[in-house]
């Protein structure tokens, strides 16, 4: 005969066992909460971030180009262009199993990261134009040289998306294969609260830059904190709730370290960024000129993927989606994922958009050459200035005619074919 508690204690109602179990669990968790909290306060450990091995390929002033270790099973290298200023780029490689870079390198992408660096007061004269026409082209060229590949895909995240779009449109000779915009604002008329606060009627950017010189990290922090004033409270409530869980605590420590390390903006960069992008919305209007060349998004004709996050209040989906109408690509796709601006690329709930598992179209194909290879033509046929004298690629030429051929092959988005597995470069 089994000794069941309910038969041993007939006078106790059935719900008591549940309550007792719950209390037991709560006591255990509270004990763990106290333990972890005291560890965090008394013996705080510096979280280890950026676990993926990497090598420095090139450095220019404060900026670095990193190449991450991977099997490089995909032929086409990927250049990741994040935001300049605001925050440190280790968020993309935060910690094991919560790293966008780790995921991409495990998939076999030859991954290059542009690390803009921390600009000091000596860089106050650096403009958006300088970043787009002097730094980015050089880093992209070095990445291409280092990979040995003939083409490159570019992924712009946040501010990195408009910056990389400006670079690509002003450098038509760059052998671009695919372009990805992850939470990068394109149409600044839909940019939400930041757009409203930075409106020329209320915000005098000239006075701001002339008075402060550079934009201090504390000011940047204030702006982002104001965007979501309850964020700190909800973060702390969630920490308390999950404090019993060591895995959560480790993740929190790493993310918290990043979230409190804001970076300053070079003054002139901020002036141009606010004026021409936020206040005048020149990018989507096609009125920007950089390095003497017009910035026309319609010049992008290669396969394009744009990814917006539903709850993104820094780059709301509408301002990201605008890229779809601005480019002349026929092979283009817009994805809207749940989550916010950061959860797209960081944290344990990471949903890597480029992860083949998240999208059937991104599954790697069989090994072998890319189905559409670059045709050899003389460099004189290219309108560019000759640093990247490549043939126009189907779908990446300046005319939309070539790009229309791409879709017909297998029906899936052509960047999947562009990143078919091949021998390592």
């Amino acid at each position, binding site marked *: 005969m089994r000794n069941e508690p309910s038969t041993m204690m007939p006078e106790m109602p059935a719900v008591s066992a549940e*309550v007792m179990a719950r209390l037991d669990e709560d006591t255990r968790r509270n004990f763990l909460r106290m333990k972890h909290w005291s560890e965090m306060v008394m013996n705080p450990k510096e979280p280890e971030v950026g676990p993926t091995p990497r090598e420095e390929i090139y450095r220019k002033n404060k900026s670095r180009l990193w190449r991450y270790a991977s099997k490089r099973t995909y032929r086409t290298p990927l250049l990741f262009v994040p935001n300049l200023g605001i925050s440190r780029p280790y968020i993309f490689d935060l910690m094991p199993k919560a790293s966008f870079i780790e995921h991409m390198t495990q998939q076999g992408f030859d991954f290059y990261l542009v690390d803009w660096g921390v600009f*000091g007061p000596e860089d106050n004269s650096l403009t958006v134009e300088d970043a787009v026409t002097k730094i980015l082209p050089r880093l992209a060229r070095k990445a291409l040289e280092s990979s040995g590949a003939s083409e490159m895909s570019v992924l712009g995240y946040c501010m990195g998306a408009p910056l990389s779009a400006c670079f690509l449109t002003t450098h038509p000779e760059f052998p671009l294969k695919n372009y990805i915009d992850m939470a990068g604002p394109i149409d600044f008329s839909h940019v939400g609260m930041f757009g409203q606060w930075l409106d020329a009627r209320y915000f005098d950017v000239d006075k701001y830059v002339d008075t402060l010189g550079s934009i201090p990290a504390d000011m940047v922090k204030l702006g982002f904190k104001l965007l979501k004033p309850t964020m700190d409270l909800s973060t702390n409530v969630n920490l308390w709730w999950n404090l019993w869980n060591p895995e959560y605590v480790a993740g929190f420590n790493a993310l918290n370290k990043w979230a409190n390390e804001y970076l300053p903006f070079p003054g002139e960069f901020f002036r141009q960024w606010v004026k021409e992008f936020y206040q005048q919305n020149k990018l989507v209007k096609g009125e920007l000129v950089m390095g003497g060349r017009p910035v026309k998004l319609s010049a992008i004709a290669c396969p394009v993927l744009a990814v917006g996050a539903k709850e993104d209040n820094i780059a709301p989906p509408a301002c990201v989606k605008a890229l779809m109408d601005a480019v002349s690509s026929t092979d283009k796709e817009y994805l809207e994922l749940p989550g916010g601006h950061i959860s797209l690329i960081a944290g344990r709930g990471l949903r890597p958009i480029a992860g083949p598992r998240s999208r059937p179209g991104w599954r790697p194909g069989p090994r072998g050459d890319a189905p559409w290879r670059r045709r050899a033509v003389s460099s004189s046929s290219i309108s560019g200035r000759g640093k990247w004298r490549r043939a126009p690629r189907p779908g990446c030429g300046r005319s939309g005619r070539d790009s229309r051929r791409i879709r017909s092959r297998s029906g899936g988005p052509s960047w999947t074919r562009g990143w078919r597995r091949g021998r390592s470069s």
Partner: protein
Amino acid sequence: MAAWSKLMTQGPPSADLMGQWKQFLDQWIAAWSKVLEQAMGTETFAQAMGKQMESFLNTSGPVKKAAEQQIDAGLAGLGLPSRSQVIGVAAQIVQLEDKIDGLEDRLDAVVKELRELTAAVKAARA
């Protein structure tokens, strides 16, 4: 209160009091977040923030300038370079690096053209 009453009327009573409390806090924060978001998304708020910023700049500008002048004078008295002088030197180094990069580019272009020329000559001879 609305969040609390909504929570209390939802579903059967549970032993998970902590869970219910957390749920209440989440809803309370979400409600406040929404309220603040609405208030901060208005033109009035943007206008007020702009004014606040302007008065901050009006105050901090002269203070910053006066402090810098004082510090520079103090450093000059000690025979030390001022902050702006150090920044000037750093800016010159940045410019120098730009120039070296430009030279590197030109050199690359020349080497490339030479290689192409050599290849063309070899091909012509063959």
